[in-house]
């Protein structure tokens, strides 16, 4: 294989974050030598994909190693559909599948593709055509799982990661559907060079999507609850190192202090520095939401707790040394944390951020009202919630308070189609709900009137009993 030089960036490298794909099933993994990963109930070894081009389809051989596949037919295997065919000639004799296990093995040996085998199974099933469309879809999916043995390696993108999370782990992203995420990025006018605030407890998917759209230009400040920011979703994007330079983090438990101008992030005064360190340490011990990427602080605490009844023997000295080193390490970490806090605080203090995006399982109204204070006037904000009721509350409070225009609660309705000759129709299954968005634009607060003036910024919606113009 002679490869031209410009292919370099499209080649899979060790350590790359990649996405495995089969049909509409995706899984994000990082390539590590000798590491087996499980995909669709099969163990596979990714070593062989290194050096191949992205978007290559591989065949899974026994033992889970991968070999590039020549023919590409599996790509369209989701198109097996027979809806709308005439089934009146089928006699229901109780034997649902006419093909035997041997027949199928023979077909495999003859080199039939998995798509062709499934087609055969359907044609030879007397009950298939009597199933509901949903049951038919399920049947096809089940059979595909059983007979397909290929996997395609993709370079991660927002489209793929968002569809992956929605398909595999919607609970982790508060059921944020990919089209809703698309609306958020657009409504918030996310683009290179701006300064964006994000509150994301949707696994960091929203954070990753925003960072992709900013292309490493500008700054993103992740406002986080609890002990640390959630970023697993963002990691899946496999951003180059310099993207991480634009990412900042700020714990929301300091928001009131920062707004009051009382947050001291300098370490010049040793007492103050210690205080900050203490605050940071407390945070680390209190990580109910965040991923516990480092278990060190807890472990250390345990050692300290059991240290009382130990004598002054060499082992103990050794232990003390280790403890000292660890304390030093910890101190450095906290210092690093302090520096980060100071940097994020500096970005926030100007209250001139260009956008705010909230996507979480928190009740959003106090979050929104608090974080909006950091935005410049004439900047967009978007709040995602799985529950419309919470956004109604946000809407009502913003209307009372003023300082925003273009407030709108929306959701999107998404339907996929099967487009095949003489068999075109919407897919028989669709996603129920993709969640709700509240979007709006900040404007300068009107100082001439009190914040809770009855004269709102926009004419308030009329109270209605029955209103003909709307249903």
């Amino acid at each position, binding site marked *: 294989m002679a490869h031209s030089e410009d292919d370099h960036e499209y080649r899979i490298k060790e350590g790359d974050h990649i996405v495995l794909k089969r049909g509409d099933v995706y899984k994000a993994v990082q390539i590590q030598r000798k590491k087996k990963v499980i995909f669709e109930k099969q163990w596979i070894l990714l070593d062989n994909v290194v050096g191949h081009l992205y978007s290559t389809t591989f065949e899974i051989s026994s033992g889970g190693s991968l070999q590039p596949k020549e023919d590409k037919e599996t790509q369209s295997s989701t198109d097996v559909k027979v809806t709308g065919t005439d089934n009146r000639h089928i*006699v229901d004799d109780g034997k649902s599948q006419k093909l035997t296990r041997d027949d199928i093995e023979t077909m495999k040996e003859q080199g039939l593709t998995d798509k062709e085998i499934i087609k055969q199974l359907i044609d030879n099933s007397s009950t298939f055509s009597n199933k509901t469309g949903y049951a038919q879809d399920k049947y096809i999916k089940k059979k595909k799982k059983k007979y397909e043995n290929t996997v395609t390696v993709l370079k991660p993108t927002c489209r793929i990661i968002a569809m992956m999370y929605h398909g595999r782990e919607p609970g982790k992203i508060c059921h944020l559907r990919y089209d809703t995420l698309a609306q958020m990025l657009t409504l918030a006018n996310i683009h290179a060079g701006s300064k964006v605030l994000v509150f994301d407890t949707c696994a960091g998917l929203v954070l990753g999507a925003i960072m992709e759209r900013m292309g490493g230009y500008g700054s993103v400040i992740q406002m986080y609850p609890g002990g640390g920011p959630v970023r697993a979703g963002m990691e899946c994007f496999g951003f180059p190192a310099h993207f991480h330079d634009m990412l900042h983090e700020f714990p929301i438990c*300091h928001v009131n202090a920062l707004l009051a101008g009382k947050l001291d992030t300098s370490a010049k005064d040793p007492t103050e520095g210690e205080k900050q360190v203490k605050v940071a340490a407390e945070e680390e011990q209190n990580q109910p939401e965040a991923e516990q990427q480092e278990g060190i602080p807890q472990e250390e605490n345990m050692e300290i707790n059991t240290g009382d009844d130990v004598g002054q023997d060499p082992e103990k000295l050794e232990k003390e040394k280790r403890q000292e080193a660890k304390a030093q390490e910890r101190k450095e970490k906290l210092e690093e944390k302090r520096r980060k806090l100071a940097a994020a605080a500096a970005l926030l203090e100007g209250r001139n951020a260009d956008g705010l995006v909230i996507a979480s399982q928190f009740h959003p109204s*106090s979050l929104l009202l608090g974080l909006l204070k950091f935005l410049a006037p004439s900047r967009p904000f978007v709040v995602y919630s799985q529950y419309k009721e919470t956004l109604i509350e946000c809407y009502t*409070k913003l209307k009372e308070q003023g300082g925003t225009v273009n407030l709108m609660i929306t959701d999107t309705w998404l339907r996929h189609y099967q487009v095949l000759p*003489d068999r075109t*129709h919407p897919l028989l299954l669709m996603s129920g709900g993709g969640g709700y968005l509240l979007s709006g634009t900040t404007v300068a607060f009107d100082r001439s009137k009190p914040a809770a003036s009855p004269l709102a910024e926009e004419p308030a919606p009329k109270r209605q009993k029955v209103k003909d113009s709307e249903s």
Partner: protein
Amino acid sequence: MSFVEYSDLIKDGDVAIVHLGHNSVTPVKVQHGAQTQTRYGAIRHSSDLIGQRYGSKVTCSKGGWVHVLHPTPELWTVSLPHRTQILYTPDIAMVTMMLELKPGSVVCESGTGSGSLSHAILRTIAPTGHLHTVEFHQQRAEKVVEEFKEHRVDHLVTVRNQDVCKDGFGVTGVADAVFLDIPSPWEAVGHAKAAMKKHGGRLCSFSPCIEQVQRTCEALTEQGFEEIRTLEVLLRVHNVRDVTLQLPDFGPDPSSSQASPEAMEGASTTASPNQTSVRIKTTTLLREMPGHTGYLTFATKPRT
């Protein structure tokens, strides 16, 4: 019991619908001495069903309980044995209204399929209407005849085992309404017209694919049908849920309390200052729901 008339008490020979809880229902033929097994244990027809009131709670042999419901076409639709793909209640409701069915209507239907729509039609046209239903498949036609008898609606329906596209509905000039759920409805439009009353009537064709709709609309136009309208109806089920949502902690407010009242006020209606979470009542949609059943094309046959 009959599918077109309510009774108070369960009788021998009835078809009752056993409600096993949470949208799970199954039909039972009530017979002296018979037993029906459920996940909660056996139901003994003689002691547990016969003579009991419809709607009663029945304790099964394992101690679990079920409710026994009077059959309705809608309960039948969600519990009938599938011999084909069937029409569900949202489409059936639309078909019934848009075909202008009512007591006394004469209706032609093809194919009969598993009889889901047929039962709903019979419920609406009873006691003075009639259904002519045509099913190509012999086994299915025989099976549905049997069911109509068991459901005590056989006096309202004629089942014909023939090919509607070749042989039509077997009646001429009698139908107020025609319903088509066949692979090539355009081939049956002429027969539909012939089956309908001279002064006019309504037609509906159900097809999953848009190409079927296009050909059917062309055939309807050619045959002089009017008010040709295609539509689609989808049901959304809203599940009621209690949800607990965390409240954010912005930390102690070092400024005077009136400096940033909004931050606190934010949760005022839903939470006292010290609460860390709120509960709301909301509804959620299913993660996956029916995205398409079929297109419904309606048309009016004018006076001919």
